[in-house]
């Protein structure tokens, strides 16, 4: 057995990078037992925490980049350890001190964020291209409500319909809203989870400035990742806004009796809980109640739902990284949906949609299973 001494400088670095939570851990291993990676291969968060506690981390290890921040471990941890914070701290140190250990695709995304404010190498000025034919006004003093589409629908052509559908719904339901366009940047959620706090702060501050400039009070979002960041991280940087996810907006309308579905959607639909909507923010009932009220729609639950929902694999900057075949959580979810006999896999997160679309394609099931954002279904029946 090797003899090692606690490495105090490393402990201090992790602490300073925000990973101090390792102190609380009593090594019960529940994080490891809960982590979805263990469906496909061995990954032991409790060991990572222990390594951090003694400063005995191997910065070059691939493992540090696996975590999709799905929050399963955090939501169950009996000692309240934010395991993802510790991992984020080590990622932060790695970015600075062992750049060669950082996945290449992640470096590309960070580069794109730095240059054009989005991770998908899109041109900044194209950000509002999706809205060209929709005549959406720029957000201003009269509107005060911003629709923030998220970079993924804005720049990925196969995702654009989500933003368009959402905008149509907002219009149809009489929302007084606008968009910002080129001055808008990525919310920064994923790059923060990747450990690059510097880029995150830059993006966040530029957004906050842009929002303030336009007099934004309320933000309607498509992505739970944007939702989480605006809600939990922006206030500390001076950005206090009323943040509303589309499902919350719709469910509020429904409560007021203002949401009427005119057409039926006679299909078997399975709803997937996005981690950042569910476990991170506790929003479980709103999307279900919306879907349940659509005429003809048969709503089914996944094998693991709500607090126990399986991550698609796209959080924690994993959306930018390559995941090997056989290790993709989204493949499992698509297979489970097919087993249930679902015709449509619906969710409320662009990352989930991106991953599911990929999975359906690579599994050759695009004729059998339709992947939709909840906005797209509502847009069809409203």
């Amino acid at each position: 057995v090797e003899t090692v001494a606690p490495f105090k400088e490393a402990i201090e670095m992790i602490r300073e990078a925000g990973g101090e939570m390792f102190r609380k851990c009593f090594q019960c291993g529940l994080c490891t037992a809960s982590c979805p990676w263990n469906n496909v291969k061995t990954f032991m968060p409790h060991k990572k925490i222990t390594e951090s506690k003694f400063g005995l981390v191997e910065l070059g290890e691939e493992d540090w980049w696996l975590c999709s921040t799905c929050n399963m471990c955090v939501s169950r941890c009996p000692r309240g350890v934010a395991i993802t914070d510790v991992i984020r701290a080590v990622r932060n140190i790695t970015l600075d001190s062992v750049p060669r250990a950082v996945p290449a695709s992640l470096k590309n995304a960070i580069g794109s964020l730095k240059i054009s404010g989005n991770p998908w190498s899109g041109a900044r000025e194209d950000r509002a291209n999706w809205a060209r034919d929709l005549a959406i006004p720029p957000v201003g003093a009269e509107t005060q409500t911003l629709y923030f589409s998220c970079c993924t629908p804005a720049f990925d052509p196969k995702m654009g319909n989500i933003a368009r559908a959402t905008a149509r719904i907002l219009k149809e339901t009489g929302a007084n809203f606008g968009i910002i366009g080129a001055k808008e940047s990525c919310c920064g959620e994923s790059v923060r989870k990747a450990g690059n706090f510097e880029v995150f702060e830059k993006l966040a501050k530029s957004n906050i400035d842009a929002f303030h400039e336009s007099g934004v009070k309320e933000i309607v979002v498509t992505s739970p990742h944007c939702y989480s960041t605006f809600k939990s991280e922006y206030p500390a940087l001076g950005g206090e806004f009323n943040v509303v996810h589309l499902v919350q907006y719709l469910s509020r309308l429904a409560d007021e009796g203002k949401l009427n579905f005119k057409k039926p959607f006679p299909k078997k639909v399975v709803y997937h809980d996005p981690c950042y909507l569910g476990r991170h923010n506790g929003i479980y009932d709103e999307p279900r109640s919306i879907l349940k009220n659509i005429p003809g729609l048969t709503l089914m639950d996944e094998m693991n739902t709500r607090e126990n929902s399986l991550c698609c694999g796209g959080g924690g900057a994993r959306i930018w990284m390559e995941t090997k075949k056989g290790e993709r959580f989204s493949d499992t979810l698509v297979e489970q949906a097919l087993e249930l006999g679902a015709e449509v896999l619906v969710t409320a997160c662009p990352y989930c949609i991106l991953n599911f679309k990929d999975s359906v394609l690579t599994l050759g099931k695009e004729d059998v299973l339709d992947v939709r954002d909840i906005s797209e279904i509502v847009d069809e029946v409203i």
Partner: protein
Amino acid sequence: MSNEISVSEIPVSQGKIGAVMVVGAGVGGIQAALDAAAAGFKVYLVDKGPAIGGKMAQLDKTFPTNDCSMCILSPKFIECASNPNISIITNTHVESLEGKAGNFQVHLYEEPRYVDEEKCTGCGTCAEYCPIYVPDVYNESLAKKKCIHVHFPQAVPAVSMVDAAHCLFLQRKICQICVPTCKSKAIDFKMQPKRTTVEVGSVILAPGYEIFDAYSQSQYGYHRFSNVVTSLEFERIISASGPNGGEILRPSDNRTPHKIAWIQCVGSRDETSNCTYCSAVCCMYATKQVILSKEHHPEIEAVVLHNDIRAYGKGFERFYERAKNMPGVRYQWAKTSIVGEDPDSKNIILRYRTDDSKVKDEQFDLVVLSVGLNSTEGNRELAEKLSIGLNEHGFCESPAFSPMETSRDGIYSCGVFHAPMDIPDAVTMASGAASLASQLLCEERGTLMEEKVYPEERDTTGEAPRVGIFVCDCGTNIAKVVDVPQVVEYAKGLPGVSHSVEETFACSVDAVNHMAETIRKQGLNRVVVAACTPRTHEPVFQAALREAGLNPFLFQFANIREQCSFVHMNEKEVATEKAKDLIRMATSKAVLLQPLHRAIYNVTPEALVIGGGIAGMTSSLALANQGIKVHLIEKTDSLGGLSKRIPVTLEGADVQNMVKKLVDEVYASDLIEISTNAQLVEYSGYVGNFISGIRVGNGEALKEIKHGITIVAAGAEELKPNEYLYGEDDRVITLLELDERIEKDSSQVKECDSAVFIQCVGSRNDERQYCSRVCCSHSVKNALQLKKLKPEMDVYVLYRDMRTYGFKEDYYKEASDQGVVFIRYQPEDPPDIHAVKEKGKSFLRLTATEPILGQRLEIDADLVCLATASVAPTGNKPLSQMLKVPLNEDGFFLEAHMKLRPVDFSTDGIFMCGTAHSPKFIDESIAQAQAAASKALAVLTRTSIEGQAAVAEVNEELCSGCRVCEMACPYDAVKKDEEKRVSVVNQALCKGCGTCVAACPSGAMKGKHFTMDQILAEIRAAFAA
């Protein structure tokens, strides 16, 4: 002026009232009620449920002795029910309370039972006719029972009740089938809720707990998978009186599970469930369930998935070791997640990390959730109504060093209402709470008491034997093995037998009353009960004889359970034949039984307390407060004991201040005579009349003390180890030494940059197979102090299991938050320590294997603190020999019963408290000291006590005065009368063990109740089949 006083002018009773209300009738409430009644107070025992017994009545067996829970509890039911000074009030809760300590008016609200308690016999006929099935709450809804039913077979009061929520008549005004079936006309649907007001001097709160709601956390799959059950459900599944008659069957398919997993800490030590505290009992009950499962089916594979195993109580560590070493049992240190259910087998798949750094998926037939103990909504309401403070976890708050006190004078608490705890701790606190109530109401003692009056004894001289035989099914404990109806028939044909009958539970209140009635009606003059054991149940049946006007010694037990159905479980025919043999033997003896009478003795109302630590002083004061003269002897030159070395508690309370106050109070009391440098050197006598010889200092002359009871509070000591360089290097110290160092000169401690605590030094090893209970918390306390003195100090704790049970868990967590690093080590791979000099620096280098990393960690420390064992003083052995009371294998005093008699010895009149019993915290010692005082007081306030009746007797004609009997007697009860030159038996000391009878070469000794002809008759009957 008119002589009349208008009603409004009648004052509520002025002054104190000699009555106590106990709220909650679980085992704690029952014990508090019995103690308060024994102390001379009228008791109202109130419970919101339909019967007394609480959660303990639902348990199968109890750890660490595996005694049957109901078997040890039901005698207490009978004691309560038959005590004329205890009013049992069920289906009732406290609505409000007024008044002050000594004089409370308690307003009660009683839900209607729809059955008249006075009229109902609990015969169960109504239930046979009732058409509606409801979930059986007693069986955790694993079975169904009729809407009108008796809560459980041994229930007290043994009367039916109507489940109003499901009754067809109460809900829909149809049915009422049950009403005409009741011969006693007891069913009354017109019953209304009843409000009453009771005046009492004091209130003892024992409302208990509820188990953690496993539904609330979806991760356990309790709502989704049928083969996931709670531990309380498992108690019912495994219980002989449960829905499967004691067969372990899993819910999905009623098949015996081959592989069972226990998941520990469900709703305990868990921030996500808002229960950060440790529930203190789950590790042990799971261990018990493992052992019981293995006993049911030795081939069962049992896996306990756990965090720290908290086997901290007396006898727990051995129990845990026993379970761990059983074949097919695994204890796996890991919390687990439920991956899912196999759709075909309905097996549950669990995922957990293994010790060799792997992640494993494993299937189990059944998963048991070891759910924690929670406060209840009802408890919160009760506390609010009574203006009682609760802590952040919803448990009763008490001032430092007064565990049974609440935030309101005159209202006391005990059991799990105070904190999660196991049965003996709850029973101890219950007696302690009764002691406080007794002190408060001292002057009113006896003012509201009623004597239990039995009818005059019938003279049976000259009557031909008329034996009544009662054969008990013990639910299914006996009946599922022995063919009881066949045995009953057989007994009818035995000589002298005039009545023979089967009973489902012979010990139920209803059955006992019925027995008395049968004795009277049939003119029986001998009774044989074929049931369990005389150890627990003889007094119950003897009371029935007395009730019927028969001398209680005209009774004979045939143990057809322990000696028959339990040991011949798989040989039903043989067992039935053996039951017949046992009953035939008992009957042959019964016909020869003679009435016996107990001798009456006076009581010397004084106490001897041995040991002047916190426990001894607390007991002394409790007695002196009630006018009892106390002789307190202390072997050292001052009072205070070990506590003099403890500056503060983990919770931050000032120990020295408390001890000083206690010492001052003891010295200030006129009734306490203190002897320091004193030792007990001579001891004789019996309960009520002991004589002790005390040597003070080196004096030759002995001081003679006459006293009625003795309390042993001889304390414990901190082990001085001979490992880890202790005694060789002064940087290695014990916990108490660190306490002193921090207290006296913290600057020296502040110079340290790194400190290491090593746990379990001298505990939990082959030499001392017990956990010292306090050291984990003690180390946490000191670690927090070091962090406070110097936040940048590196503090490490090398431990095996952190046993910070109950609310002490919060401090363990606090220490982690403060950066104290906890490293688990294995006993077979203990830490290593070397003194090292390097680069001009001198330090201690420790290495220990870190189990997660799988590497040996090297830590350099300036201070090493050893958490050494609490050990029994060497003086315990001679003391135990002098008092003729037993020690356990670890040298601590051994109580009469691990679960229900935690402060009593088997010898009457001698009690124990504090660390003399086992290592424990100050609060626990204080509770036990009060409990011992309560037991002592029950003896000392009596004017006289009854001795044994079945004693030895000398036939002076035959006795040659050879003294063989005197040497043989283990109780010092036989002495030779030098004048008459024959032996004389001291009837007060004689326990009737019969050793002298066997030893006497002349046949001069006779054992009453076990005479030669009685025994020979039994032997003859044994071979007469």
